[in-house]
């Protein structure tokens, strides 16, 4: 997997975009883990950039946040965030973006709505929760069932974000298809002798 300059700049710009989506701030419900638009950015990163570039952009965001830049929602940053109750969710973002990307891009020639929907729900919600809830439970000293209960507040918001991801991804496909990098695959396919008619 050779990284091109386009890969590099898309990874960087998407990391910045997720940071910018955090600027409107975070709604803090109860205090430990905020509701944030950044998860929308995570879903979009996977859906648009594909699995590895999507995951890479999340890693880049988290590394910079850890290094002290205030790139997380509400202008937070610093290594401390990774010792707090949201650490697991953020690690989940990495895997989540990869899963969204894998589901949306695998074998496809264009984003299809149900793949984006499935990807966002599985990668952007379930995977993120699967990593996030146990870590939150451990840090806060909650039992797993209590942590799951505490996590319910995020469901409505995250469901809306998944739906938005579908609409936004398809709109970006219409407006700027180059961004998906699908054509690279099409070109690669074209170079091989055609065996099956499309």
């Amino acid at each position, binding site marked *: 997997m050779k990284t091109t300059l386009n890969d590099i700049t898309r990874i960087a710009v998407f990391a910045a975009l997720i940071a910018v989506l955090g600027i409107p701030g975070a709604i803090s419900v109860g205090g430990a883990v905020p509701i944030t638009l950044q998860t929308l950015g995570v879903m979009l990163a996977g859906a648009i950039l594909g699995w590895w570039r999507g995951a890479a952009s999340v890693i880049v965001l988290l590394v910079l946040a850890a290094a002290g830049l205030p790139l997380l929602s509400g202008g937070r940053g610093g290594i401390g965030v990774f010792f707090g109750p949201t650490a697991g969710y953020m690690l989940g973002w990495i895997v989540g973006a990869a899963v969204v990307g894998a589901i949306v891009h695998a074998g496809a020639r264009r984003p299809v709505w149900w793949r984006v929907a499935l990807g966002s729900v599985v990668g952007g919600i379930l995977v993120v929760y699967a990593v996030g809830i146990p870590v939150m439970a451990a840090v806060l000293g909650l039992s797993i069932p209590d942590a799951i209960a505490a996590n319910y507040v995020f469901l409505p918001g995250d469901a809306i974000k998944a739906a938005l991801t579908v609409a936004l991804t398809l*709109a*970006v496909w*219409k*407006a*700027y298809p180059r961004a998906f990098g699908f054509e690279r695959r099409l070109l690669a396919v074209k170079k091989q002798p055609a065996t099956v008619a499309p």
Partner: protein
Amino acid sequence: MNAAAGESVIELDHVSVRHAAADREVVALDDVSLVTAARKIAVIGLNGSGKSTFARLLNGLRTPTSGRVTVGGLDAAKDVRALRRRVGFVFTNPDAQIVMPTVAEDVAFSLRGRGLSRAEIAERVGLVLAENGLADRADVPAHDLSGGQKQLLAIASVLAAGPSLVVADEPTTLLDARNARRIGDLLLGLPQQSVIVTHDLRLAAACDEALLFDRGRLVTAGEPAPVVDRYLAEVVAAP
């Protein structure tokens, strides 16, 4: 300077706009007072003289730090929503203004929330696109248009909303000579009252009135020819 039928009176009453910059305070507009109802109003002045700030006041994108702005009797501070329905705004960079993926969708965006049916919206969009020479580009991604076409689309989308005043902030700066001329002529030919911020002095000269800003102050307003002359003599030539 007389109010023709249909023209709104634009009134600024001792308006100042100040920005708190990192180390000092920037005065973008400094005690500007003005009453005008001219049909085509040019705004000229050097970089940083306050032209964009003035234009943005008219649409409520900026609010005065002190003083009062009214357009056609609407107070820009109080009736922002009504003001924005009445005043259309064309930005320099059409890329920043086109918000929907395709040409037709972008025009339709201006018509949302007015209780129009889908069919009515489609009809109006078709009409507006035809009027602006974009009929065959309806389903093209907006970002694939050429520079001139993008600005045409931006203007078409503004006009679709049916404004009675069109404010354009350097609408031709990014265009080539032919497109700049075309867009300039289009704006001059619009039936709507228009405020056109421009560095193109030919365009300014073709308006009914010109305003000259310098370092946040309104230096003079009136017939374009003498205002442009004064700009060249006093402002541009100054060290």
